[in-house]
């Protein structure tokens, strides 16, 4: 048993602040906040449930005084261990921050608290004809706070960008308990540094988000969903390039390779033609006449690339079923093999065919099953290296992942597109960032969190933060 990081004095202060109901050291609470979607487990020493920003600030002051690590947690649906308390300490559960404070229809923005669920925000703004585009596959259960902290992407990034592009301002509690407000409700705002974007994608290591101002768009009039089946992933990825070359920007172009299709087919019975090697799920949105024209053009491009089957979803439920199938691929893969390494590399989208070919070669070289799916439209590939639970295969899989990262970087890509680095990829960050970038990042972290108490052990190898200490 590791040492409990919470001393009696800190415990007494926290209980005095939060009461016994919102400060827990019960094993049941600690276990139930010990994991995220990486399937790793690290049991925290305590769990706190603050109700307002003042309490968050006071908790951080207590934590700073006693050098207790604090890890903020939204829904715990992250894929890289962002909410795992790897250095022990306190899990700060943000579930009380679950209000949509204001939907400002005149300025097209919304003020939200971090525990609001992405899909819930979307539903609420849609009720007044507005639209919040970022939609990670976990949108039904992931929180906006987590989305901002990880700079989540989603299916619509090809046309609408990612979370970063919608965050106008933040309320953030710094590790020492200071409350800062960044950005504003203004579209144009050049007052000082762009501090908002410092916190977007910071994976909970620089500050705790307690409120956000998010930009909204008018809801597109209509949308159309199509699927196109191809013989191979190579042809499908060439089709994606052709669509973009034709100056069409669909809302989404998702792809699934043969193995991904196989993983979801047993549950969803999509009734796809036998033996297909790739499926594209394409959606366009906009005015009726505009989307009809785009859909026709897309059909044309698919046909010239020998699509085996082209379908248009006729009803909303048909459409929803297709999307549900796509969203559940990650969880469905367990049916093929019990373990997987889950990477989300991204390349400039024109290089998609090259990276797919490279991954296929690597799969062959190491004799592994690799499932690829993801966001073809923005070059973001979810690479899943499947493994049996045996040492030799696990070793091969890790080698394969390294090869994939090297290939990605050679194609001007990045080793993570939207999942973040967290704990699962931090040993690889040096492949991507040079010593100067790493040094600058470490400096920034040290400036905001000199005690290294906020979500320690994430993004960078431990040595980096200690080595560069002056």
């Amino acid at each position, binding site marked *: 048993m590791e040492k409990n990081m919470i001393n009696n004095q800190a415990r007494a202060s926290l209980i005095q602040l939060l009461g016994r109901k919102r400060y827990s050291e*019960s*094993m*049941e*609470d600690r*276990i*139930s*906040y*010990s*994991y*995220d*979607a*990486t*399937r790793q*487990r690290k*049991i925290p020493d305590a769990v706190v449930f603050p109700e307002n920003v003042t309490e968050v600030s006071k908790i951080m002051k207590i934590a700073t005084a006693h050098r207790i690590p604090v890890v903020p947690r939204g*829904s*715990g*649906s992250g894929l890289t261990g962002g909410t795992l308390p790897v250095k022990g300490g306190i899990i700060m*559960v943000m*579930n*009380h921050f*679950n209000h949509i404070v204001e939907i400002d229809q005149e300025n097209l923005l919304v003020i939200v608290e971090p525990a609001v*669920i992405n*899909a819930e925000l979307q539903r609420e703004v849609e009720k007044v004809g507005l639209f919040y585009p970022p939609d990670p596959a*976990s949108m*039904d*259960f*992931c929180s906006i706070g987590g989305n901002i902290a990880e700079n989540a992407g989603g299916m619509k990034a090809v046309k609408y960008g990612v979370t970063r592009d919608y965050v106008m301002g933040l309320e953030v509690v710094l590790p020492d308990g200071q409350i800062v407000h960044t950005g504003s409700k203004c579209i144009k705002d050049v007052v000082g540094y762009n501090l908002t974007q410092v916190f977007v994608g910071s994976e909970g290591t620089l500050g705790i988000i307690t409120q956000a101002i998010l930009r909204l768009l008018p809801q597109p009039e209509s949308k159309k969903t199509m699927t196109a089946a191809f013989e191979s992933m190579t042809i499908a990825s060439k089709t994606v390039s052709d669509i973009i070359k034709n100056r069409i920007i669909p809302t989404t172009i998702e792809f699934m390779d043969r193995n991904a299709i196989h993983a979801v087919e047993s*549950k969803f019975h999509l009734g796809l033609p036998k033996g297909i090697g790739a499926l594209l799920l394409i959606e366009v949105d906009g005015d009726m006449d505009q989307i009809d024209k785009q859909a026709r053009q897309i059909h044309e491009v698919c046909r010239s690339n020998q699509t085996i089957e082209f379908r248009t979803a006729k009803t909303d439920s048909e459409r929803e079923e297709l999307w549900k199938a796509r969203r*559940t691929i*990650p*969880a*469905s893969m*367990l*049916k093929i093999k*019990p373990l997987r390494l889950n990477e989300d590399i991204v390349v400039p989208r024109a290089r998609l065919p090259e990276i797919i070919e490279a991954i296929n070669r690597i799969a062959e070289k190491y004799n592994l099953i690799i499932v690829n799916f993801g966001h073809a439209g923005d070059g973001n590939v979810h690479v899943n290296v499947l493994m049996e639970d045996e040492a030799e295969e696990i070793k091969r899989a890790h080698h394969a992942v390294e090869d994939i990262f090297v290939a990605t970087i050679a194609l001007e890509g990045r080793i993570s597109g939207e999942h973040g680095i967290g704990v699962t990829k931090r040993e690889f960050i040096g492949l991507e960032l040079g010593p100067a970038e790493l040094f600058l990042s470490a400096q920034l972290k040290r400036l905001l969190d000199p005690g290294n108490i906020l979500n320690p052990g994430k993004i960078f190898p431990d040595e980096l933060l200690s080595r560069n200490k002056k």
Partner: protein
Amino acid sequence: MNKCRKKTVDITKAEDVMGCQRFIDKAFQELDKCIKCGACCSVCPVFAEHGLEKYVARGKLALCEATVDGTLPLTEEFRRVINNCTLCMACVENCANDVQVQQVIIGARALLVQKRGLPMLKQIIFRGMLTSRLMMHSVLKTGSLMQWILFQRIPQSSGLRKRFPLPLIDEHRYIPKFARQPFLKQAHEFIESPKDSQNVIFFVGCSTNYIYPNIARAVIKVLHRLGISVVIPEDQGCCGMPVMANGDLIIARRLARENLARLLSVDDTSPVVVCCSSGGYMLKHGYMELLADDALWFAKARTLGARTYDISEYLIKQVGPKKIADIVSKTHPHEITYHDPCHLNRGQDITAEPRELLRIASGGKFTEMPEASRCCGSGGSYGITHRDTSRAILMRKTDNIMSSQARTVATGCPACIIQLLEGLQQQGGCVDVRHTIEVLADSI
């Protein structure tokens, strides 16, 4: 008297103890399938009310894992968390890996019963269910009598209602009236149809038998009009769901065997129809799950399960909508909506059949409510043991019912009927709650 004693003596037969252990082991194998993605958080009605991770499937599974690897002993808090589940299976339906969460919950409850025992009250009730139907009958009769004394005799306005509250029951609670005479006491064992056609065996279920005999009468009326003869074995027992859901698998196994023996002894071919969702779930799946380790009884459970039908399923799939439409003479007068019982929808995959019956019975005046398949919060004894959460879940359901503007809500489960009546009574009682088969029976 002798009979009673004999059954109490061998109550923990060695095979049953082992069978129970195998059930737990098999259930806990499901734990490996959970990848902790969090999808269950978006559908769990209990989590929606509490917002605490330990109450969602993912959290409960993590706690079970921790008991397996020794991180967590079987604490009182663990028991409380594991008991805080309606077994609605919404998480199972939404799970990409088909983790059978309900099995894990029942397995964990069984483990708790095995290691820590059942609370005394539940022990007495469950053992009572088993030892003799006579006793069960008299327990419920006593309940009926007490209720009659307490609630019929005391006027609504009397302060006595407040001064003599029943345990666990508050003064605002809707209390279902027990029938003066259980259905099985009144019914003939064989109701022959004038036309010489198929027989069906009718498994009545406790709630219908003791509280809503009208549902059983409706089943018989409809079948009779369709020219189908009905066999009603008088000594059929409790389906075992309440016992299984509370983790007393030993008693559940015995109830399963008794019902299997009784129902299979009627004949080899007749379909068995059920008018409660839990009974249907048990006959189709529950008995096989309970008796998985016992080749002989498992085979019997499979045989019976294969010819068991929910009444709506039987009418639509085996009789056919056309014949049903032919017997309808006066359609239901106003808009009707439908609440999916969890164990009919997710438990047996039956959603279209009751709606089709209601469309026929109402001449098309059917309207969907939002979230029709969301749990009503009843969950058997959950409504009594977790009153506040159950009420909160129920409120969302009644809001959905009210928003449909229907004047009747139909459903296929007597336990849901009790719950919905309570919720709707608080909303002013202007929506009528009926079993699907009652709506149909009224229209012929």
